[in-house]
């Protein structure tokens, strides 16, 4: 009997079914509705760009792990796939493919692997890739294809005809200092040559029938993905609610104070990358705080910075910068926001 060879390990002896893979593939599933809506509005370009980003992210991670680090290959843990999808979601669907490849290299190589790979990166890799592209190729990164329903030809991808984003059009027109917000939103903007850009109504903003980065347009699809992640307990409500709530209140206050100068808060929430940022980018586990209080501070900070950049800054959109700036504060937030210890002695009165 004494020849039995048992496993010996300290407790616990039971483990939950959660794994890095199950979490990462859960996020990927949550991203699919937004991808589907993007395909609907931007056609094949959306799929091609996403595919290029995913394949190059996995490729670069493989090369770095195999030849530079000479370590374990973990490209199928799902994290590189997510980085690829999110990078694609943050660029126009007609961005030249080689720029997508460069963005992937920056995202994986610089933002992720140089810090030690999964779990060690302080900044959201997809956003680092996106901001790098925005600074390097500002023209291509701000030339958006017009949404067109169910155009399955390659036209959506290669067509040079570009449309505006609501935020960009509003910012440019407001910058001229001639018209009020309401006037611009109602009558549209002359893009030159008699081409009037009409702003999408709330319904179209909700569905995603508006110009913008590949995966950010459909608020409803992103919210569905977010609810799925909440159900799977991949994310908690703290960051998205804090961020969206802050934007609503801050933009709302500005709008009440000066309705002619500042757009209403619903317009802010529904346009640009706020929904994508709140649900998928700011909730990235690796680059967000560890405690509920920390997550709320983080979300509030992103919300404030986003509105400040959008309203007072040079860029029409500020979500990426806001998230990256708050990423830098995460270690500090973690240090300052401890969970309430059980049985903590109350400070002497």
């Amino acid at each position, binding site marked *: *009997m*004494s020849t*039995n060879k*048992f*496993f*010996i*390990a*300290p*407790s*616990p*002896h*039971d*483990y*939950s079914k*959660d*794994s*890095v893979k*199950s*979490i990462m593939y859960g996020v990927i599933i949550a991203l699919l509705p937004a991808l589907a809506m993007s395909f609907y509005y931007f056609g094949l370009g959306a799929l091609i760009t996403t595919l290029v980003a995913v394949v190059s992210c996995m490729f670069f991670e493989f090369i770095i792990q195999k030849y530079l680090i000479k370590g374990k290959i*973990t490209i199928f*843990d799902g*994290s590189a796939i997510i980085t690829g999808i999110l990078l694609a979601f943050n660029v126009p669907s007609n961005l030249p493919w080689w720029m997508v490849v460069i963005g992937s290299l920056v995202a994986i190589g610089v933002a992720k692997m140089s810090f*030690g*790979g*999964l*779990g*060690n990166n302080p900044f959201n890799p997809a956003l680092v890739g996106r901001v790098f592209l925005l600074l390097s190729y500002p023209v291509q990164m701000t030339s958006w294809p017009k949404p067109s329903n169910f155009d399955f030809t390659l036209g959506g991808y290669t067509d040079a005809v570009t449309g505006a984003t609501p935020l960009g059009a509003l910012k440019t027109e407001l910058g001229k200092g001639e018209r009020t917000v309401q006037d611009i939103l109602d009558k549209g903007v002359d893009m030159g040559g008699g081409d009037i850009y009409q702003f999408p109504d709330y319904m179209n903003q909700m569905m995603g029938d508006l110009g913008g980065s590949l995966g950010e347009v459909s608020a409803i699809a992103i919210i569905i993905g977010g609810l799925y992640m909440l159900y799977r307990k991949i994310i*908690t409500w703290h960051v998205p609610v804090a961020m969206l709530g802050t934007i609503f209140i801050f933009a709302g206050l500005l709008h009440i104070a000066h309705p002619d100068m500042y757009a209403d808060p619903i317009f802010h929430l529904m346009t640009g990358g706020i929904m994508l940022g709140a649900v998928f980018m700011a909730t990235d*586990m*690796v*680059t*967000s*705080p*560890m*405690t*509920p209080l920390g997550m709320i501070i983080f979300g509030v900070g992103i919300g404030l910075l986003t509105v400040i950049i959008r309203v007072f800054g040079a860029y029409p959109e500020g979500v990426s910068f806001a998230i990256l700036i708050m990423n830098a504060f995460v270690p500090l937030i973690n240090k300052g926001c*401890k*969970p*309430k*210890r*059980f*049985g*903590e*002695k109350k400070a002497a009165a």
Partner: protein
Amino acid sequence: MLKTFPKGGIHPAENKFSAGKAIEQLALPKTVSIPISQHIGAPAAPVVNKGDKVVVGQIIAKSSGFVSANIHSSVSGTVSKIDDVMDTSGYRKPCIVIDVEGDEWDSAIDRTAGLNKNITLSQEEIVKKIGDSGIVGLGGATFPSQVKLSIPKGKTADVLILNGVECEPYLTSDHQIMMERGHELMVGTQILMKALNVSKALIGIENNKQDAIDYLKKISADYPGIEVHVLKVQYPQGGEKQLIKALINREVPSGGLPIDVGTVVHNVGTTIAVYEAVQKNKPLFERVVTVTGKSVSKPANFLVRIGTPVNELIEAAGGLPEDTGKVVNGGPMMGKALNSIEVPVTKGTSGILIFNKKDAARNEMQNCIRCAKCVSVCPMGLEPYLLMQLSEKSMWEGVEAEKALDCIECGSCSYKCPSARPLLDYIRLGKSTVSQIIRARNQK
């Protein structure tokens, strides 16, 4: 809304295969090895010699300190040796080995079946009797029970809490005890209430044991001051601090004891041992042990004499399955893995749990993805990921400052970690190192 503790916790698969299995008396073994250290505190000092004849219930090793416990013979027979034998810790420890001859009990033990509800001993006599009978916490912690009942000067208890939670998956011994021995539990509770001089006792039971809740609620009507409280299933509700918080919403201070918030917690199995000691003059020499596992053919709850080799329990439950990968003494969350099944059952053995090869191995560790699940499940409000990092880097001051010593080692963090990181292993390392540092500091 059912009551539970507010912060952290998990709900692993319950897998209570042996639920509802009546308690069976296990056949007497040929020899027993009774360790002299089955409790927290100083080992007992043997008072028998090789060749001595002993009877069931005879004292064979005496308590050797304030925190220590008497050990009684669980069988009648001859002491064949007093020697180092491997016990459940995997180390060879001093044991009194007895060859079994018949089953002759100490004549002082009342072996009649009737319930004795009439508590005649005084408060002091009860505490002394419990100490003399070698009773320790049977939930697994094995803390000597009379120490908990000796309330330090300046402190008072106003309520007794009974732990019928059995929050560990798989285990069913407490559940079965509550179902079969409810009246003895009630009288035992009254004895403990008298010992603590309190008029109120709460029995906390999780709502996965509805039959026990219904039964004890029904019979508790005849016992004034005893209330049965239903709790929502959540691990580690059987932890003293969590149970107190759940039942009476008091928080034991960091580094403190339940008595600091006016309560004392005893396990239901311990309470029945108290009944037997005080009312029937029967010391602690047997206990109920669950033998279970996914591949175990006959999961069961056995009444086992202390010192019986674990393999006899496994044989009685249908034998060691072919695909056995790990055998655990206790529950899956806090039990200890055994490296041999020839070790003896001790007072702290609440269950013998057999894992198949697939479930026995740990998953491969991956990078921390900072998902914060360990922080959210920690019932003590700690940050397991941080404690692990600090321990890995030998930053012991940080480990101490981040309250590693508050860790109750429930294992929720390691259970939940998607990257299969050995969080609790490192926290234990941190705790033991910090404890040594603190001891050294205090000696200066």
